[in-house]
């Protein structure tokens, strides 16, 4: 889960990382108070979880209270790159001398933590990597020894910043945040050096490990709240413990197992169709799970046809078939469906489908071709 900039900055402040003076507002009526607190000129920043906010007009400098009110009015309720703006962060304008990039994350390929830094802050790390890969400083941290002083010394000399003792506290802070909060990415971009020589985090990007909610109820609550912009389907899917991702096509996909479900989407695309979603019912799903999963797709207006692809290992085909029949009973058959069911209790499963007039396939490729054809005919 991604945190909003203002949430990340609240965390930074708790860990002693300097941030600009700021206030979050969710209505223009709160603006005069906020400006009184941060002073003028100020910066107003739309709070969204998508990248490229600056280029999309989500960050503006204001020189008066009226201007700030106007900006906030036009931002709140609007959408930025498809994401609704609910809150705006108003901050003091900082006198910038230089901008740096600094982040901490996990380098999967070597199973180590990694500090990424660059003297070219303010643009996406992807952009820096593409334009001047040699400018990126990479320092690996063995998780068994953790962050050590020598790592930070290396970073200071690589960035040519030996005079900035602040950097020490910032890197220490980021490392603690990463571990304490189960973050898999903690990024400051830009980390600015002010004309007075202070280091300030001008932006924040923190993502929390989805596997760690059991020790961070506060993040799980945030995730399920309206502010995360989860779709209705995504919330329902989370409630039932499915993995669900919405896509922009018209063929609803249900599979068991992440790899098989992805392969099913790919198969649909391979034969010229367009998947509407990824929905993995997981291992050992019973009829109730199958019914709930299918209901999500039956309720989705963008779905014109449904492709269920189950390879029964621990999952039993007869349970899947019963789940399908029950979902259809509850909803009435309004969407054409192609079922491919093989594996454990395959015969029983097919018999149940047959009794209810549901067409099934043995070959995943034949099934994919069929569903693409059905969706095309509409």
């Amino acid at each position, binding site marked *: 889960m991604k945190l909003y900039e203002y949430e990340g900055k609240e965390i930074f402040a708790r860990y002693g990382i300097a941030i600009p003076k700021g206030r979050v507002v969710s209505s223009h009526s709160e603006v005069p108070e906020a400006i009184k607190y941060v002073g003028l000129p100020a910066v107003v920043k739309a709070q969204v979880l998508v990248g490229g906010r600056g280029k999309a007009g989500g960050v503006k400098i204001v020189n008066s209270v009226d201007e700030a009110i106007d900006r906030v009015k036009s931002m709140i309720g609007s959408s930025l790159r498809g994401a609704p703006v609910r809150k705006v962060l108003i901050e003091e304008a900082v006198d910038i001398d230089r901008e740096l990039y600094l982040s901490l994350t996990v380098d*999967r*390929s070597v199973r180590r933590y990694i500090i990424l830094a660059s003297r070219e802050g303010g643009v996406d790390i992807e952009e820096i990597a593409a334009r001047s890969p040699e400018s990126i400083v990479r320092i690996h941290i063995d*998780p068994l020894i953790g962050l050590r002083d020598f790592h930070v010394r290396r970073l200071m000399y690589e960035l040519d910043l030996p005079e900035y003792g602040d950097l020490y506290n910032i890197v220490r802070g980021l490392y603690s945040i990463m571990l304490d909060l189960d973050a898999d990415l903690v990024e400051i971009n830009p980390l600015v050096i002010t004309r007075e020589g202070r280091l300030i985090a001008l932006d924040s990007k923190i993502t929390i*490990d989805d596997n760690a909610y059991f020790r961070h109820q506060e993040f799980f609550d945030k995730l399920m709240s309206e502010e995360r912009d989860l779709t209705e389907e995504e919330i329902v899917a989370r409630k039932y413990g499915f993995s669900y991702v919405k896509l922009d096509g018209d063929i609803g996909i249900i599979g068991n197992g*992440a*790899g098989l479900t*992805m*392969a099913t989407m790919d198969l649909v695309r391979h034969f010229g169709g367009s998947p509407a979603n990824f929905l993995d019912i997981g291992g050992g799903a019973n009829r109730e799970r199958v019914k709930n999963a299918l209901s999500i797709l039956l309720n989705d207006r963008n779905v014109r046809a449904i492709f269920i692809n189950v390879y029964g290992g621990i999952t039993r085909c007869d349970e899947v078939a019963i789940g399908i029949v029950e979902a259809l009973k509850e909803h009435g058959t309004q969407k054409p469906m192609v079922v491919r069911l093989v594996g454990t209790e395959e015969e029983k499963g097919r018999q149940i489908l047959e009794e209810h007039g549901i067409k099934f396939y043995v070959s995943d490729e034949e099934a994919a071709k069929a569903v693409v054809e059905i969706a095309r005919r509409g």
Partner: protein
Amino acid sequence: MTIIVNKETTVMVQGITGREGRFHTERMIEYGTRIVAGVTPGKGGQSVAGVPVYNTVDQAVRRHPDIDTSIIFVPARFAVDAFYEAVDAGVRNIVVITEGIPLHDEIKMINYARGKGVVVVGPNCPGVIAPPIRVKVGIQPARSFRPGHIGIVSRSGTLTYEISDYLSRSGYGQSTVVGIGGDPITGLDFIDVVKMFFDDPDTKGIVVIGEIGGDAEERLARYIRDVGLKKPIIAYIAGKTAPPGKRMGHAGAIITMGMGTAESKISALRSSGIEVALTPMEVASLTKKVFG
């Protein structure tokens, strides 16, 4: 020969009294796996499918010093502790079935175990199955597999059963099938397992089942460029239609910062002489093409 497991493999099941632990213990014994002990704190003295249950790993290995392999079914929040308990008791191979272990726990667990020379399969994996010797340390449905000479290494579960099944039905059985797991950090990566298959005289060809996220497939391609294609490899990559920035079920299946796309993996593998199938079924037809 087989890899990771052999005829002497002697197994302990951690979390044996849970629903999954119990079910799969029975299935593994049915298949032919030698399971001598189970561990669940507080359930010592009971037995599951005729297997004695102990309160601690230490008790289990003292009573059964021949235990060399553990399989962990313990729920995520307790799995980390169970894992360290097995490593510190000297168990050499650990298969972690558990899904949902936090990343920061995994990164420490894996580094600690690898440092001690312990082979870790998983986390979040289906385990290891060797059809020629009928040893299964995992949750795979036996029906998908036949004895033979194809080694399979995969980041996914069900998709592996599916592809094994296609291969079996085309007459290509398997030597050993290893599910390395779907998380960003895993104990074994593709290179580790492909190396083992290269060294295994009973494995004639290798199937690699990858997916979006990370660079394990690209690193395998580089490794093959360095050492050469010692045995034919056929690959399949899932997630060609996955959007960037979204986790596709597996914690590790995510395209981040433009990295980890299916296209990048497919082109890296192809440029190293590895055949890449476009559909699961095509893995079997390419195998036929290679082996005749």
